[in-house]
């Protein structure tokens, strides 16, 4: 059957083998949906299984416990989840930065939009870190003069968003004007150099953060934010961050 088929086709192929004797005369296009009505191919499924089990086991290994559910929508200018993330960046990055350069991180800035999921009450695993930070963004530390830090602060006041910060204290008046801004309990000195930790995404101008350039120098820690959170989860037992007064607006 197959052989006859082949012979027939070969014969036709021979008859029609002269160049330029075929031409395209009809095209049909369609889109096929991959839905659960299509059976999974068993050998492919079997091949994936051990990989899936390994990843699942690893990602679902309990690292810490969240005492509540934390969402980036809870809070006006600072949120518990954002505070947790910015503080974790400070706590995990500062020892590395200090060891490498002898300097200390003065403040941390992340972006509100970069908090990609909630942290649900209950067990925390590496999967939690993949959920809140699926991107491969890395920690960078930028040396900035105080005058540029003031630009950063004006940006925060203008955007009125709960961009996560750590070590910077910022108070706005009821009209969103800067009332008080301080690092380490001191107001910002225009000519002093500050070390600001953020992500490479924001450093490159992500989320319209254009104030990082020009600067006095940049150090990339080659440390993914996601891995930083996983490392931090391993160190803590319970996660119970709170909304505090680091970034607030005065009420009447």
């Amino acid at each position, binding site marked *: 059957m197959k052989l006859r088929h082949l012979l027939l*086709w070969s014969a*036709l*192929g021979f008859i*029609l*083998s002269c*160049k*330029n*004797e*075929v*031409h*395209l*005369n*009809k*095209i*049909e*296009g*369609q*889109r*096929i*949906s*991959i*839905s*659960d*009505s*299509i*059976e*999974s*191919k*068993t*050998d*492919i*499924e079997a*091949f*994936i299984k051990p*990989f*899936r089990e*390994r*990843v699942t086991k*690893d*990602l679902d290994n309990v690292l810490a416990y969240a005492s509540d559910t934390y969402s980036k929508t809870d809070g006006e200018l600072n949120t518990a989840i954002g505070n947790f993330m910015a503080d974790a960046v400070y706590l995990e990055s500062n020892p590395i930065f200090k060891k490498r350069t002898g300097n200390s991180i003065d403040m941390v800035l992340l972006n509100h939009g970069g908090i990609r999921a909630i942290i649900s009450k209950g067990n925390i695993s590496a*999967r939690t870190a*993949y959920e809140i930070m*699926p991107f*491969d963004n890395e920690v960078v530390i930028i040396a900035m003069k105080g005058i540029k830090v003031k630009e950063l602060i004006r940006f925060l006041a203008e955007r009125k968003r709960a961009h996560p910060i750590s070590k910077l204290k910022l108070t706005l008046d009821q009209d969103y004007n800067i009332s008080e801004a301080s690092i380490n309990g001191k107001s910002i000195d225009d000519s002093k150099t500050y070390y600001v930790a953020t992500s*490479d995404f924001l450093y490159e101008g992500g989320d319209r953060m254009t104030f990082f350039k020009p600067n006095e120098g940049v150090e990339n820690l080659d440390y993914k934010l996601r891995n930083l959170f996983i490392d931090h989860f391993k160190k803590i037992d319970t996660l119970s961050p709170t909304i505090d007064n680091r970034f607030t607006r005065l009420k009447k």
Partner: protein
Amino acid sequence: MKRRTFLQQTTAAGTLIGLGGLTLSSFSAKTKKITILHTNDVHSHIDPFGPNDGRNANKGGVARRATLIENVRRENSNTLLLDAGDIFQGTPYFNYYGGELEFKLMSMLKYDLATIGNHDFDNSIDGLYAQLPNAKFDFVNANYDFSNTVLDTHIKPYKIFIKDGIKIGIFGLGIELEGLVNKKMYKETVYLDPIEKAQDMSRILKEDEQCDLIICLSHLGYNYKNSPNKVSDLVLARKTKDIDLIIGGHTHTFLKKPTIERNSNNENVLINQVGCYGLYVGRIDFYFESGKEKIANSRTIIV
């Protein structure tokens, strides 16, 4: 059974374009059919989305795609399976295995050819190079100069397949990496003008190689509404000739059916892209008639 239903639906919803001349051959002829299946921007989505996913619940999955592809191949052995890039990055599978699983599965599904997307550099050009032995299919790209990188000689500008005597030339195009990918990831890869390269490629494939069918695997993106001059698949289609089909990626554009665009010779070009994450597979069937004379512009397009 389900496939049949689908075919009926698409035919009912479809449009038919007949261009001047004859749509039925007036001479005795034998039809040859080439089927192209394609994916793009699968982004390491190996498992189907879970039942609680807010957007794509229970959709996608490589093992299901495998079944579909096998069925199509059984129906027509003259089938090519192609991918338009961004195979990597999007699920922990990539973070864990660096693309090994993606390439091994695509090899098991018997992919014939792929091009490179910007996210395929996410583990750096060295990470991509390290995974190449797991891919039993080739990669094409015509507008990245890899001369001073580890990928030198490993990526060809185009590849030719012969199916049932039909000569099919497929070349690849990639997006500008600067600004999208960190330089330390793509290293000394040099981006060249995709339009110029496409013009070179279509000339080589049409005139020198005498291909019957020319396909471009593009990771340029479908269209940029806010910057219409930025090179995209629509721009590419208009500024080139002799390309029959552009299979796109990058912009995660879910086209319900292929777009028909006019090229610089005022001939039809098909552009297709199937969104992302392996939620869909695109299928294009090309029917060739053999006969003594070629009738210009006598092709029918049903989408």
